[in-house]
């Protein structure tokens, strides 16, 4: 993803800002402008807490182009406490220490260093929850 894309997604990547549907109350991440439940417009920004739990996970040993230097890394589906599931890498934890149901929290980390385009993209990853809740 180049410079415009990285800039465009800064609110989602860095602050986990999604949307809330003012018709039915559903919290939405990633933002999609139309509520997936009631199909009404839902463009009101909503900032997620960043707290959730592991829904599923796997460790990638054969990465796609652009991720070679990071492999192996663990990717999870994280169920946020507000409802949505997000796909994200786990950090600060060994793969054999991960379990379904484990509480996690969002942190900001480097996602990819695309040196050819001069862009270092940062965004959300999740780690075992450390903060008081």
């Amino acid at each position, binding site marked *: 993803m180049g410079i415009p894309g990285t800039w465009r997604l800064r609110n989602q990547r860095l602050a986990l800002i999604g949307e809330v549907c003012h018709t039915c109350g559903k919290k939405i991440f990633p933002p*999609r402008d139309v509520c997936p439940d009631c199909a009404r417009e839902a463009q009101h920004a909503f900032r997620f807490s960043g707290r959730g739990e592991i829904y*599923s996970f*796997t460790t*990638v*040993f*054969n990465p*796609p182009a652009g991720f070679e230097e990071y492999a192996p890394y663990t990717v999870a589906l994280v169920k946020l406490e507000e409802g949505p599931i997000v*796909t994200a890498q786990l950090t600060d934890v060994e793969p054999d220490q991960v379990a379904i149901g484990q509480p996690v929290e969002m942190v900001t980390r480097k*996602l990819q260093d695309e040196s050819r385009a001069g862009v270092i993209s940062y965004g959300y990853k999740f780690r075992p929850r450390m903060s008081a809740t």
Partner: protein
Amino acid sequence: MRGVSIIGVGQTPVGEHWDRSLRHLAYEAVSAAMQDAGVEGAHAMYVGNMLSGEISNQSHLGALIADFCGLRGIEAVKIEAACGSGAAAVRMGYLAVASGVHDLIICVGVEKMTDDVGGKLTAALAQAADAEYELAHGITFVGLNALLMRRYMHEYGVRHEDFAGFSINAHANAVGNPYAMFRRPITLEDFKHADMICDPINLLDSSPMADGAAAVVLCPTEQAHAFKGKPVHIVGSALATDCLSIHDRRDPLWLQAAEDSARRAYAQAGVTPQDIDLFELHDAFTIMSALSLEACGFAERGKGWRLAAEGEIRPGGRIPICTMGGLKARGHPVGATGVYQIVEAVLQLRGEAGACQIPDARLAMAQNIGGSGATIITHILEAEE
């Protein structure tokens, strides 16, 4: 709407065809299908393909393949729906004939994967998923299926080896298919000890990347008997979509588009799952087979794996699947796969499946899945009376 029939089929062996390019593979399948039907031309061609732009630096396949097959000038366009591109192309051909716009259509699925290997191919395949919210986090296509499989095992208390029956069946069936990539059986021990790719998915849960092309010729049922071969009738055809990302699904472990497309196809054909004699499903990974059987009404939620464990998916079982090797052992040239499935179903219904023949097969279902479930196409085919 007019009834639509398949009057010719053709395919190349699935494998690593270092000596043949995308266009040559497509021509080989189209030419075989046209000979099988006894036709010398067509009014339109739909080309199913996913990766040509990424891997072969070639877009614009409609014109390229039509011209290369000696059909310069006809309507021709590429149809893309990730790994569902092949059956999506057949669906477009079906609509063109059913609507009365065209009388003679060629649908060809073609994929050339071995022009690149490694990370670039892995990244190209992953484009079936959401670039901004899945791929940006380094997930691969195998990885997405691994997320589903781990959750499935957790939710339903299933062990990894409980999926072995899917791969063992596919490999056993491929032995009799001269076009299959892996014509050798595997054992439970092989499955249990295969190399891990992306836990819990190991090498023998996974279908292989490959080159290949397959083609069908379609015409209105009312004209089907004017051609030389035994026609097979498309009695159900449906395409349904779901969200691109697993994380956006209402229930990640339910293939809603499989249920929706199968339900519509059953209704159109006036049949139920119990009537289906064989099912060419999209076993890109063993977990997909289980989810597909559940969504299509062959097993209850969380119990699709049992059909494999109990041998009900083998020839002679309750619902034989992957009768000519499936994606696992025939091979998975992604954008061609959906057409291979239909070609194999046609061979079964014409009684020409050789060592793979399911006795007295009259109704066959084929289901092709794009991505991790976002585009799913289901066809039901019926043998000639």
